[in-house]
């Protein structure tokens, strides 16, 4: 059984997901000791801009560049937000695109700092994903997300997930693709307010359907460890000796931040602009 990690990186005009993927892959290799493949519509950018780093990846799987109409708000702390094109559409192709039998898929803004996720391969389950996530902001509860909407299903985080190829996971990804292709319908059925297609929501819906429209089931199981995240209103200040320093926005007092630090903990950093600055400071 082959094992590995795949990352998706579809650049827009301002966010260099490929560079994030390089940084992310280096962390994966350091702590999980796994090959990392990149699925990207920006393969040319990789070879042109980072020729010496192409070898970071086990395989580069090039996908067609599609015209993207949906735009996402990208914040950089409490400053001005930008609306940029957001291509998150090929996550449901992970089953067909992965070169591995057992795969961990992760966002490029998920930074691995320990080997917890290696335990996926020791368990006998075919699909693992986190439902609960913990916001690192010590006073950040107002921005926590538990459900896809107030009255709807619990939200699973497609930020990181593990799957083993089999009939059930194949069906899951086919269903996921169906949900993506009929997003307007499923969004309405599940009473989701945001118009944009979001993988977290699509995964949550697919899991709900696979479980016979019920919650409190034993599939899928949670990934080993815990999903910690900082929001795009927070800033990444530093990353030294596997220790992150964040400035977390105070939701009650605009423009003020409180410090949070983590050591040897994997973190999903949603402020991609701040992450870019950090990666640049790391010499990539």
């Amino acid at each position, binding site marked *: 059984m082959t094992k590995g990690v795949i990352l998706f990186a579809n650049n827009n005009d301002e966010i260099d997901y490929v560079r994030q993927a390089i940084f992310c892959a280096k962390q994966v290799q350091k702590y999980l000791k796994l090959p990392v493949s990149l699925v990207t519509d920006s393969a040319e950018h990789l070879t042109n801009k980072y020729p010496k780093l192409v070898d970071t990846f086990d395989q580069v799987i090039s996908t067609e560049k599609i015209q993207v109409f949906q735009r996402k708000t990208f914040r950089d702390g409490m400053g001005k937000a930008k609306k940029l094109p957001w291509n998150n559409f090929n996550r449901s192709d992970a089953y067909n695109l992965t070169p591995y039998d057992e795969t961990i898929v992760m966002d490029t803004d998920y930074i691995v700092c320990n080997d917890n996720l290696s335990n996926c391969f020791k368990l006998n389950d075919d699909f693992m994903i986190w439902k609960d996530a913990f916001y690192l902001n010590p006073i950040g509860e107002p921005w926590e997300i538990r459900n896809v909407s*107030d*009255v*709807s*299903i619990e939200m699973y985080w497609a930020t990181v997930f593990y799957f083993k190829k089999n009939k059930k996971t194949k069906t899951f990804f086919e269903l996921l693709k169906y949900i993506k292709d009929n997003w307007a319908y499923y969004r309405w*059925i*599940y*009473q989701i307010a945001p118009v944009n297609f979001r993988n977290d929501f699509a995964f949550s819906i697919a899991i*709900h359907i696979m479980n*016979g*429209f*019920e*919650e*409190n089931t034993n599939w899928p199981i949670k990934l080993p460890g815990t999903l910690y995240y900082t929001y795009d209103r927070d800033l990444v200040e530093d990353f030294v000796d596997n220790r992150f320093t964040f400035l977390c926005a105070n939701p009650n007092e605009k423009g003020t931040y409180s410090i949070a630090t983590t050591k040897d903990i994997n973190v999903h950093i949603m402020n991609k602009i701040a992450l870019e600055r950090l990666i640049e400071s790391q010499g990539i």
Partner: protein
Amino acid sequence: MIEKGFLIYANNTWKEDYLKQAYALALSIKLYNSDAHITVVTNTEPDAKYSKVFDNVIVKKTKPNSLLNAEERINAFDVSPYLKTIVMDADVLVTENLNSWWKYLKNYMIYYASSVRTYRDKIGDSTAYRKTFVQNELPNLYNTFSYFEKSEEAALFYRMQRVVIENWQTFYKKYTPKKQQKWCSMDVSSAITSKLLCNEEQITSKDSFINVVHLKPKQQGWSFRYQKASTAVTLNFSENNFYIGNFKQNGIIHYVENNFLSDYLITQLEEANATVS
């Protein structure tokens, strides 16, 4: 005497068509429990369509003399033609076969549901609607679903309940001094009866699988304060399953708001029943 059956009270008021609700409930019972025997006690002569689904219709021309017409239900024990009776509110739907429920209820002479679930199958926080019970330390009983077996024990309970209901103002003043309800409620009256007989442990179990999906809005765990649950979620029926807000339902649903019971839903239940029979 018939061994077991369902008893539904459906006394129409100027405001609510409880007989229509009872009809929908009976359709849902028969869909999953084709051998079920159902009695409806009503103040309105049902038409031929409604009569068809009930095995026994008892028409009693009563005039409601309280907000919830609770007084009428004190006769359930005497009126029931069954040795073992499940009594349900009319605004309830059954979503599954209840054989395992009957089996479980064999352990009891009287039983009341005492916990509620949300439509998302989470334990519901009923305290918002149960202040009288909490503050006066009353057993948290729901008449939405109750059961009795004709027995000395049950006869004593219902005799006592009759005394409480016929003198509800006196009993409520003494046993519910805090957050006292201003109308005669079957739930409060049954709880006082149980407290007087010290039999809570013999007539309910909080950990039992017998509970009710209760659709009152404040106990659904929503952040937004919906005044009506029917403005937040819909109740649908598809391929012999009930769904609320796209969640498949199990057990029994106490939908409370009449808006949930659409004519289309009733038609679907009729069609599903026609297929079964």
